[in-house]
């Protein structure tokens, strides 16, 4: 079955299950609003939904940009300065394992009413998979290839440009599939804590108002954004890394 057919069947069966649950449980629209009411609300409030989506996306993409900047800089710095890697490792481990939910509150206190704490939350959540995969990509270079380049008297820059960086690219691309999706979730999470706009803010408001339809509409948008982030990552990987063997990739996906 093609993935397109599967996606179509998913949408159809989700709607069937949705209506089915309402019918079987005799649920009131305030408890679980049926899909058509949610769609109606989306049509009605599209302006505010679009604006808040834009706000959340801006936070996510800005944070994600800086997460990449941090990850790439650190990975390259670690590659050439062993001492720095040893020094930074405890920091990275602690930052990675921090309970972001509680740290987010600290950031809000420290940075106040500005986009900075929300962007920092996105960076904290997203940088680690990117960094870890880049480091792995640099480490998993064929030692024979490095040896051959050394016998050609290649400079460190040539070795990086022609061997190390292309080798790390597929690992880096695989990290995007995880990290880019998390950037959306991270931005929403950050908005939970303190914000006057954004999808996270909408969720809090709708929850407090017992507006199931608005809550569902917002959730559908968040899920769609995450799926779009994943799709974009996969597409970018295919276009930018044409040398990646497809067959073996499918195998590894089947395995996981």
């Amino acid at each position: 079955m093609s993935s397109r057919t599967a996606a179509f069947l998913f949408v159809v069966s989700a709607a069937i299950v949705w209506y089915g649950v309402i019918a079987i449980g005799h649920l009131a629209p305030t408890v679980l609003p049926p899909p058509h009411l949610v769609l109606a609300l989306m049509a009605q409030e599209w302006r505010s939904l679009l604006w808040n989506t834009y706000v959340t996306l801006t936070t996510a993409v800005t944070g994600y940009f800086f997460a990449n900047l941090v990850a790439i800089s650190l990975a390259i710095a670690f590659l050439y300065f062993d001492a720095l890697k040893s020094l930074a490792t405890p920091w990275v481990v602690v930052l990675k394992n921090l309970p972001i939910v509680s740290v987010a509150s600290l950031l809000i206190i420290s940075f106040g009413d500005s986009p900075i704490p929300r962007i920092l939350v996105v960076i904290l959540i997203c940088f680690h998979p990117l960094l870890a995969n880049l480091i792995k990509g640099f480490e998993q270079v064929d030692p024979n290839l490095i040896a051959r380049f050394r016998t050609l008297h290649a400079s460190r820059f040539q070795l990086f440009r022609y061997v190390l960086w292309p080798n790390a690219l597929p690992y880096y691309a695989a990290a995007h599939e995880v990290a880019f999706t998390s950037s959306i979730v991270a931005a929403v999470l950050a908005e939970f804590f303190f914000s006057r706009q954004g999808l996270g803010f909408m969720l809090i408001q709708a929850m407090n108002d017992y507006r199931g339809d608005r809550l569902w509409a917002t959730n559908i948008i968040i899920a769609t954004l995450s799926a779009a982030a994943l799709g974009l990552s996969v597409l970018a990987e295919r276009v930018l890394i044409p040398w990646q063997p497809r067959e073996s990739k499918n195998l590894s996906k089947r395995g996981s």
Partner: protein
Amino acid sequence: MIDHFLSTQAPPAVNVSSVSKSFADNSVIDGISLRVEKGEFIALIGASGCGKTTLLRMCAGLEEPSSGSIEIFGRPPSAATSAHEIGVAFQRPALVPSRTALENVRLTLKITGSNDAMDPLALLTHFGLAEAVDRYPHQLSGGMQQRVNIACALVHQPALLLLDEPFGALDEITRERLVDWLAGILRESSRTTLLVTHSVEEAITLSTRVFVMSRRPGRIAAEIKVPLPTIRDFEVRQSEQFLGLVRSARDALHSAIAD
């Protein structure tokens, strides 16, 4: 005039003098000396782990001898690599996975800065890879990858070619064909070649001299001259002389391992 000629006599292509090598407390090579003149094709045979690959890597400047010295054209290996005088091909093809066959060969030229050396496309075509030049390494068969790998080792016209079991990972048929092919390619030049192999036939088919190494820690156990005609076609390889050389190399190898 004659004095001048004598004093500028070319140094040997490879001069290994009493080289030993150990990794931690593990002695891999124990006092090897050998001298390779320009234009010779030398095969090093020995059991697995006898240090033949280590010797080759030291010639390529990838390892330092623990004692003794190695000179390539009268200079330390590092000077030879910075002058781009060395080409290497390992058992597993060392190709850049993100570049096609042709781009890989071109990259070697770019790094060595010897753009006038050889035309990469002509070289690959000559290697029977005309249709495969735009394929990525993972789209090539093992034999094709190794041919590209050897093209990368040759394209900048190095004076010394170091081959580390280049056919070791291939199946019997592909290997035989590639040995014939390599013999043809190298016959056309007067390049000095050092080949590490564990195949006696391969050594006798290709080389002008064979060094047999003992078990670890490696020493030179025997040296066999191969006075066969340059072109060693099927007929030559069925001759008594060829088979006799294979036999004596095999005997030398067995007694070297038994010691």
